[in-house]
């Protein structure tokens, strides 16, 4: 690799130092632990690895973990947008309080959110009882898991979208309106293209957070093997049985799937951006 491509000249000095730090931190905190994980999983016998990783219980947990996480991130895509839009565009009494409330899931220990959610969504809880009337059980099912993951991912979505929505100048909508566009048209052709990158980023963050979530989910999930058991829980179960290599095997599978999903989203992201620039020439 030619040197000048590697080192872009910049106004700020200290590329060597900062790049060194970046490499060191990423290595010490991300790459090395991941390598250790792979190593540990690799120490297993191949047949054992396959048995643990492809066991029906493990497969069920992948389905729940990744399914509920994408569903939760998708729900956040819609409702997170609505919340962010409301907070950016409207001034109402208690605006500050609502804004602060968004960060609550960040601040609470996740176990607390889990317990709180369970008590509300249990069959005799404040909200759960109405779902029970409809014959829908929320707590201790995959629906409950999704609810918990939605809560956990919501701040990521809202906080990512807020600055993006603030950037959609109202003048743009006004201009489109005077040019004859209806509301839906304005939303589809003016607002959405502007905030789409932020929406993708928010989706990625919410999804990634949901996949790794453990504390809040175990309370509301009920943890029935094959039905409401998430992969992180399965890993903990392996750990409690002192089956470290089994836990590492499941962990490495999660790692690979997550990496592929996140990479895909990022590729879509940059493809969209390139397409935007490409139309210019």
């Amino acid at each position, binding site marked *: 690799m030619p040197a000048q491509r590697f080192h872009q000249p910049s106004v700020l000095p200290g590329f060597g130092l900062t790049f060194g730090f970046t490499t060191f931190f990423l290595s010490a905190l991300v790459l090395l632990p991941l390598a250790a994980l792979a190593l540990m999983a690799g120490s297993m016998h191949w047949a054992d690895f396959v048995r643990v990783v492809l066991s029906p219980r493990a497969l069920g947990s992948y389905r729940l973990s990744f399914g509920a996480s994408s569903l939760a991130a998708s729900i956040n895509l819609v409702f997170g947008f609505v919340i962010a839009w409301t907070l950016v565009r409207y001034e109402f009494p208690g605006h500050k309080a609502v804004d602060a409330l968004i960060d609550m899931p960040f601040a609470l220990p996740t176990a607390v959110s889990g317990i709180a959610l369970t008590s509300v969504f249990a069959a005799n809880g404040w909200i759960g009882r109405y779902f029970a009337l409809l014959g829908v059980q929320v707590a201790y099912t995959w629906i409950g898991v999704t609810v918990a993951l939605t809560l956990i991912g919501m701040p990521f979505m809202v906080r990512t979208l807020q600055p993006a929505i603030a950037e959609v*100048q109202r*003048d*743009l909508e*006004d*201009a*489109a*309106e*005077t*040019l*004859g*566009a*209806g509301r839906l*048209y304005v939303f589809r*052709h*003016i607002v959405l*293209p*502007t905030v789409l990158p932020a929406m993708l980023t928010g989706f990625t963050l919410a999804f990634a957070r949901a996949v790794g979530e453990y504390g809040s989910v175990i309370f509301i999930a009920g943890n029935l093997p094959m039905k409401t058991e998430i992969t992180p829980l399965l890993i903990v179960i392996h750990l409690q049985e002192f089956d470290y290599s089994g836990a590492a095997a499941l962990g490495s599978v999660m790692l690979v799937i997550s990496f592929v999903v996140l990479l895909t989203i990022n590729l879509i992201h940059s493809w969209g951006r390139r397409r*935007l620039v490409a*139309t*210019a*020439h």
Partner: protein
Amino acid sequence: MSITLDQVTKRYQGATVVNDVSLDIGDGEFFVLLGPSGGGKTTLLRAVAGLTGVDHGRISLHGRDVTHVAARERGVGLVFQNYALFRHMTVADNIEFALRVRRMRAAARRARRKELLRLVSLEGLDDRLPAQLSGGQQQRVAVARALAHKPEVLLLDEPFGALDAKIREELRRTIRQVQRELGITTVLVTHDQEEAFALADRIGIMNLGRLLEMGRPDDLYARPATRFVATFLGAANLLLARQSARGLSFGSDPVVVPHVESGVHVREHEVVAVLRPEEIELAPSREALSTAYMADGAVDEILFSGALERLRVRLGDGAAGAHVVRSESGSDPPYLEVTRSQHEQRVFPLVPGQEVALGVRRLHVLPTPLSSFMVCAPNEEIARQLGGESLLNELATRMKTRIAVQVEPSLGSAALIGSAPSLAAASPGIALSPGAASSLRSASLPGSVPSLAEADGDEGLAFGGAAVIASRPGALRSVEWLLNRGAEKVFVLPPSAPSPRRVLIHWVDESARRATLAVSASLLRHVSAEAVYVGILPQGGALNAQRPLGMRALLDARSEAQAVHGLDMRTELRFGDVARELALRLAESPDQLLILGITDVAELDKRFASLLDEPRWPILIVYEPGERTRAAEPARTADLIRFA
């Protein structure tokens, strides 16, 4: 008419941003709304575009009432200060946006786009993104985009605001050309008077939500009707002057500057004169002037600015009392601003400190009846209190005028309170003797104010502008006393009165209508309040018979206010006792002000005693002596001569 606005009003959180604006803009006209920021012009433009709803009034485009029509169905094109281009779309997509929305076929869209790009001279830039264009180019794209759907009206909101001077001028020319070529009715909002002059067929000047004046640029510049327009359109020296049949005189100077517009009022009275800096001639001596001599002065400061030389000239002693209004504070020493051409500079070179004679080429008298305020109080303490009232100072600042102070012990005397008004001259308590005259002192507030006795020599008490008195028990007597002594406007001011949100207008007799409306219009130009004319008919059996008469009076009042003063007002009709109904109306909210027109001082005691005893609201009384009372005037003047 392309655009017709009828009493358009818009409020934001209780504040009136656009206040009763009525306006007709003709087909193909280029109309410029000019005013300081916060004057309501952008709100008005957005209301025409349909992006802002109005609280009152109607908007018509080409005869179609669009008040409640959505922006996308109004058929207007709007250009924003920050371009508001769609950044993720190319120039072509931006321009074709309106056509795409209308599902026009691609070939037709393309043809229209090419045509528009040629119009704004941007051929070949179809595929660029807005970010790849300069500010000027972006704004051209915005203009092309706004014209794509062939709107009937083009609206431009400070379109040059974000551009530098050179590009601004270029774009200005382009917009003028496009407008001429298409013959499209155009409204442009700006705070830049140069821009307004360069583009407008007609200018409308807005301030505090009101459309103050409109007209051709040269007309507005030469003959402004309001202080605001006089000073906003170009530089102007505003001077308080006394106008008589012979002309104008300034301060205590006996010099009279002949004035063509004189002779309308026979009686000497105070006016506000506008002297443009370029209409003042400077010469080494009075004899060397080629124009009418006005005063002596000394050059204080000289600034060279290219083609013109700007000077500040301090007025000599005599004319110094003229109170030159230069700045908001109103307390500056009497300076005049003068500009001179290169030619004038060569003929008579000047250095700072040099003594000069000032001549006037042309001056203009504002038709404003509220020239200044004169606080009248029985002692200095009340005078100081009254002079510090926020409402009074707010008015004076906005009107760019002064508050003079007159301490008049008789105003507080027990005899005055007890005496009948007509007895004033004869009553010993307020004896108009030389002794009393010497007690008339002028106190110190902005500017040196000649005392009433000095200033007016043998012509009696000519009150400068409006007399201001405190609202105290017995205020009615003070009002009568002042009116009997030549005051034409008396402002009764309660302590800490807020700035009014609504001004109620009523006159007792139709012959007071003209004067009351003139004062009302003058006041309302300087406060952000709505005007309501309250017509009151006596209650009784003849009610039904009177109703048409009352309605007629309302309509007359409204149309005269509109036609003569450009003042738009609401009207309401009430039945019952006049003073009682006015009191009831005033009681509805605290931030109101009443303007009451009367023709007979005696009426006050007979009909308004309850209202005027210690009013809780500011009340401005306008006295227009009717035919009957005019006949009695010589006697009054005679008394005053004795007094002087």
